[in-house]
């Protein structure tokens, strides 16, 4: 028995949305050029925040889609295409990473100390770590990671889009081994990627939970973006027949769970370092609890955990899209603050607090490009995978608690 589900109305970016993301991209480009003339170190650090932020979102979309395939989830079918749309940024991320690496081969400047032969020569610890932390191996790793991500992304997303035309049930089965492969690759590669790009900014420091910490932020912000896109499509009346408040409720529960998860991981990292009080570990927190950085650290605890925790606790809060969207925007802003807090205190050597047009402008540029790629994806494919064999579970989705 096959009951037909109607194809959803196509969505196109409104003129207003298009002008928003084009102006963001323009602002980003101008800010980057000015920032490079002003202070190269600062400019590339700002660039790194945007790069890591949106690469993580693109991977997060694929991660979400993969766990739905892996668990054979029926409830999420109607929102799966939205999660898949985030991956449209992944090819851009690869290109922007190339620019980042090229920018760092500049003779007079590097974001990473271990790119610089002179610094390594004077630093015993960096010499010790050179077998892993060296530019050649870094480039090899990055190429492998992006290669695997792009390959599996093309396979999994291509599979899903093919089903819109053929309605072939076997494509659903094919997605399972691909998702398992991606999740395995993702677990290892994202952890190493976060170590390579963020943790090694302070190459003397190490934390084995760092990859998990970055993953917690990735998933929290991915869920927030997905909910915001759902909210936009509901407002435009595109998916109102497909997505009801029960889907929102489940997404809200997901968001709540990973808000707690982030706090749990962040605290685990902090407590062990605080307790053992070893100089090679405390060098990470020392600058972050002095001066203006102390307030930034407190703002993370307050606005990335305590406020969203209580804001997402009641049942009604998770079923109300405007309330949920407000929390999501807060969490996305805090994800930026989190990366800013991870990256900026590493700017040598005074750990000075700096925040200005460079950081905001460059980030907006990345945001514009991300919005552009996601909008392009959503306008060129049906916004609901309407021929997925499990779609009826999602059409009638109902949660009691």
């Amino acid at each position, binding site marked *: 028995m096959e009951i037909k589900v109607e194809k959803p109305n196509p969505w196109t970016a409104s003129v207003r949305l298009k002008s928003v993301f084009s102006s963001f991209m323009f602002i980003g480009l101008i800010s980057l050029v000015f920032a490079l003339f002003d202070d190269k170190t600062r400019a590339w650090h700002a660039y790194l925040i945007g790069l890591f932020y949106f690469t993580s979102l693109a991977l997060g979309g694929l991660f979400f889609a993969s766990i739905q395939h892996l668990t054979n989830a029926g409830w999420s079918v109607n929102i799966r295409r939205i999660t898949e749309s985030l991956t449209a940024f992944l090819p851009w991320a690869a290109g922007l990473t190339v620019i980042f690496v090229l920018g760092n081969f500049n003779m007079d400047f590097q974001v990473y100390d271990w790119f610089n032969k002179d610094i390594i020569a004077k630093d015993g610890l960096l010499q010790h770590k050179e077998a892993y932390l060296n530019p050649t191996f870094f480039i090899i790793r990055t190429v492998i990671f992006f290669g695997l991500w792009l390959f599996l992304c093309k396979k999994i997303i291509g599979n899903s889009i093919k089903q819109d035309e053929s309605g072939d049930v076997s494509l659903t089965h094919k997605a399972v081994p691909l998702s398992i492969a991606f999740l395995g690759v993702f677990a290892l590669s994202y952890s190493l990627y976060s170590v390579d790009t963020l943790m090694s900014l302070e190459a003397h420091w190490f934390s084995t939970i760092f990859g998990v910490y970055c993953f917690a932020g990735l998933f929290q912000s991915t869920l927030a973006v997905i909910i915001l896109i759902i909210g936009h499509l509901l407002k435009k009346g595109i998916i109102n027949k497909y997505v009801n408040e029960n889907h929102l409720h489940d997404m809200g529960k997901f968001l709540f769970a990973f808000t707690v998860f982030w706090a749990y991981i962040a605290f685990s990292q902090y407590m062990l370092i605080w307790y053992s009080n070893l100089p090679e570990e405390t060098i990470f927190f020392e600058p972050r609890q002095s001066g203006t950085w102390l307030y930034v650290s407190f703002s993370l605890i307050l606005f990335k955990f305590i406020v969203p925790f209580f804001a997402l606790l009641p*049942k009604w809060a998770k079923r109300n899209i405007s309330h949920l969207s407000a929390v999501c925007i807060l969490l996305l802003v805090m994800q930026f603050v989190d990366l800013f807090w991870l990256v900026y205190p590493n700017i040598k050597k005074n750990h000075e607090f700096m925040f200005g047009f460079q950081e905001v402008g460059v980030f907006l540029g990345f945001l514009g490009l991300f919005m552009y790629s996601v909008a392009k994806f959503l306008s060129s494919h049906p916004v609901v995978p309407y021929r997925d064999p499990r779609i009826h579970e999602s059409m009638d989705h109902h949660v009691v608690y």
Partner: protein
Amino acid sequence: MPKNPIETLENLLRPASKPGLVGIWMDEHKLVDAAQKVRESGVKNFNAISPFPLHGIDDAMGIPRSFIPWVTFVMGLTGCSLGVLFTWWASAVDWPLIIGGKPMWSLAAFIPVIFELTILFAALSSVAALFFLAGLPKIDPVIIDPDLTSHKFALFVPEGVEGYNRQELEQLFKEMGADEVRSAEF
């Protein structure tokens, strides 16, 4: 001669049953529709018995939301506050010890304890509230029909509840396609 304590406990846990009218369906969708009709006819406080959770039965019967989430929330906050109070009193007031050169009152070290107490209080009191609300544990509950735990669905209206009218209810149950309508104890 003293009574057997086990027997006393059993008697205490044996639920009192009430006489009433029962309708039994073989199809859960019909039961949900019937529950809706019974509620609309003005009957309050009736029971639905089903071998598995039914989507939409809460709305059909007009069951308000359970207050268990509030028990969880309030007891979670209580556990949290007690955790703060206890760790502070034990480590900084009653028996101060210097450990690893840390201050007596070191919040970071106590958060695991505070967290665990929050979860313990919230979880145990939620379960306790559930047992209380559901009248559990029950020993030898009255059985209307043994098949209600496998493939049959029933509505039970106790005698004398608000809006109870035997003839009308029997009529309604039959109209809604009940396979069996009879008097029962529950």
